């Protein structure tokens, strides 16, 4: 099998997830998009592992670890989203604007906003 097939599929999946992360309002949908991006990476790992026939099977092992970490991430992320929702009454990402220059951002979710935003940045970077 050509390596280009899984690689291109991974790229496209990743970009779809990217679009979701950037475009979705609901925080849980953002998490769904993050999952898509993670899976695109997993596909890449598996495909390259199979292609390279690595002795240690590093690609597959890492895929397993990524899956586990993704599960943990989704748990933590959902907990944070729930907290944000409880504090601010909304789970919309673009409503959480406490860091904006203008003072018209909602003040409700003061405490956990920053965590949330930082968290999302970390996720996106992952």
């Amino acid at each position, binding site marked *: 099998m050509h390596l280009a097939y899984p*690689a291109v599929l991974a790229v496209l999946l990743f*970009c779809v997830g990217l679009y979701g992360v950037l475009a979705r309002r609901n925080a849980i949908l953002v998490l*769904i998009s993050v999952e898509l991006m993670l899976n695109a990476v997993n596909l890449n790992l598996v*495909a390259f592992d199979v292609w390279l026939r690595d002795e240690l*099977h590093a690609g*597959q092992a890492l895929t397993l*670890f990524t899956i586990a970490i993704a599960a943990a991430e989704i748990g*933590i992320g959902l907990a944070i989203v*729930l907290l944000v929702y409880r504090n601010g009454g909304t789970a919309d990402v673009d409503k959480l604007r406490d860091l904006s220059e203008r003072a018209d951002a909602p003040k409700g979710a003061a405490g956990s906003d920053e965590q949330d935003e930082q968290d999302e940045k970390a996720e996106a970077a992952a």
Partner: protein
Amino acid sequence: MTLAAAGPGFLSPTGVEIAFLLVGIATLGAALVAVTTKQLVHAALWLVVALGGLAVEYLLLTAEFIAWVQVLIYVGSVVVLLLFGLMLTKAPIGRSPDADSGNRWAALAVAVASAAALVWVVVDAFRTTWIDLDGVVQGSTKVSGQYLFRHWVLPFEALSVLLLAALVGAIVLSRHKDGRAGAAGPADPAGPADPAGPAGPAGSAGGSDSRQNGAR
């Protein structure tokens, strides 16, 4: 490993390739729908389709253990978690017109640009690379167990600690604080802070109740 330029061309695909291509198209389509649909719960369900498609792709790449793990963890637990999350945040059932933010055109531009760049690079780099799927099996449960517990024991154990920490963290985060347990009840105090919010829970006894999932 074959870096062979003499590999088979794209115009005469093997059966595995055809299967991979078809399943890949389905997966991609499901993913696209998942990130564009206006119905939030449907997004989660389309995610199931996409993840399942990916599991099939793993199988086609002979990584069968990972495929089953994918089905177990993602389809079995993660999606369920997401659905619970949607319900707990009183996500509306049915079409919600504002599922996408005003950022979507910028997001689209970025996504298309990165897709174009990455596809170009990847295709340019791996145009002629051929994966030899025959030969020794690589992803069976037996092989996976061997390499996992022979070479990757320490990260595996570290990962268990990570999972424990995530478990504890999730519990701590989602727990009602004692001091404000009363205030954070059904009449959420944050409601007045954002009375205009479309998903605002201010009227928890009002119209949004009817759209609530009973699981709450």
